[in-house]
């Protein structure tokens, strides 16, 4: 699906025929296109069996001894996709397994080239394997970022981040918690830096954790379900269910949110993500009224 009416250049969505990956292609400038691949995966939550704190309400502690498990094995399955195209909107929907999906939208009448990524996750299954899960949406761009990215956590300025590094103390234990020690909060924007060809920008509609665990990638933790209390005061696991009771095994919660993604030259990045941030954080308020007959005339 392609929406190339965007003033700033085309944004198009396609599917990788090799592994079924969802690709969003941005025309950054005349010399460079950036393609972001969208995948969804989960880290197993650490259960604290090593004597250190488990993952829970206070603590984000993926079990780093395992890679994140993709929610769908990489293969092309036509049944997992639906694509729609119209003069107003192009939308591509992907099912990642049977409890997560993503809808990517590009709007024709859009001044700031970007794509909307609506993610829906849950209910997260834990009964079958007895493992808590930290679900992420990952954007892989291939940019040579050298372990650098930036996040904002107050909507005002961007904090430069570097993998396995802290400005104010000596970071030694990179191998112990390679994932959680490289996650930071982002209240609205995370952006990949370090590559003079382009910057990739990710905006969120709620505070989340984000990290660049591998070069050229950004991943955000969007939903979670833990089975262990993290011994820090809540007194129960972060295992919220739809009915809220502790005894029955009713399903977990479903979460839905929206990421906005864009790619620009490094110089024009702030202009783009600031505008998207302002729109996202100050949404238009809609109201509806059925106004047949006299009311319609009166309002007109």
């Amino acid at each position: 699906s392609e929406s190339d009416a965007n003033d700033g250049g085309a944004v198009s969505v396609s599917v990788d025929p090799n592994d079924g990956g969802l690709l969003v292609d941005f025309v950054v400038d005349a010399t460079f296109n950036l393609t972001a691949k969208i995948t969804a995966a989960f880290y197993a939550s650490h259960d604290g069996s090593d004597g250190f704190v488990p993952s829970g309400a206070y603590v984000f502690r993926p079990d780093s001894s395992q890679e994140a498990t993709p929610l769908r094995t990489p293969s092309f399955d036509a049944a997992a996709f639906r694509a729609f195209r119209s003069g107003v909107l192009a939308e591509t929907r992907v099912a990642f397994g049977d409890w997560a999906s993503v809808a990517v939208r590009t709007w024709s009448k859009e001044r700031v080239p970007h794509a909307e990524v609506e993610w829906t996750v849950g209910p997260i299954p834990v009964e079958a394997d007895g493992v808590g899960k930290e679900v992420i949406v990952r954007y892989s761009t291939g940019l040579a970022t050298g372990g650098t990215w930036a996040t904002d956590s107050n909507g005002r300025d961007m904090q430069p981040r570097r993998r396995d590094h802290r400005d104010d103390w000596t970071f030694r234990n990179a191998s112990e918690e390679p994932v959680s020690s490289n996650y930071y909060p982002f209240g609205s924007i995370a952006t990949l830096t370090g590559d003079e060809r382009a910057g990739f920008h990710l905006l969120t509609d709620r505070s989340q954790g984000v990290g660049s665990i591998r070069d050229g990638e950004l991943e955000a933790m969007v939903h979670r379900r833990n089975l262990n209390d993290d011994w820090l005061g809540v007194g129960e696991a972060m295992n919220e269910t739809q009915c809220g009771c502790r005894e029955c095994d009713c399903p977990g919660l479903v979460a839905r949110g929206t990421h906005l993604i864009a790619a620009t030259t490094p110089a024009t990045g702030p202009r783009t993500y600031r505008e998207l941030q302002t729109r996202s954080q100050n949404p238009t308020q809609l109201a509806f009224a059925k106004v047949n007959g006299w009311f319609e005339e009166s309002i007109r």
Partner: protein
Amino acid sequence: WDLFRPLAEAVAVAQHHDAVSGTAKQHVTNDYAVRIQRGVDGVEGHFSRTLNAALLTRGSPSAPAPPSPDPDAVATRCPLLNVSACPVTESMTPGDVVAVLAYNPLAWERMEHVRIPMNAAAARRAVVVDASSGEFVPSATLPAPPPAPLAGRTTTQLVFSVALPPLSVSTFFVRSLSENEVLPETALAEAAEETGA
């Protein structure tokens, strides 16, 4: 102040770091949510009454007095739009008109992309969107996104993009054409093409 007190108090209670960060037992977290929703519902009613007052007083002073208000003609927000739920638009039948009021809180013009759920019967025949000036707005319909809607609920989405002036309320009209209404093809909502390409 009495109007806003329930919401103010609920938000005050939710300043606790457990409410902000979700580090509480589920029933406590649910309780925060219930309190805030109760406060929002109180303000919501005021919001609707204010909007209706604005709606019903607009029009020339010499216009005839309105008929007794149609209970459906109450402007309401749809907080569950993100999961394709909006009772007012989902209950449309052919011949109905729904006014969509869009308030832009920014001090500059913005492009807003609107997605509203409709039931298949209202969308099947033909849908038109126009601005209060009467100008047609390009629109399209496509199936509602997963998860599968509840039985009997909406299966279609109407989408359109509109430019909203700064700090103002703009009004658009979504009309589900009745059997005998005929309008130019270009005005009608386009059925999005599902493409396998």
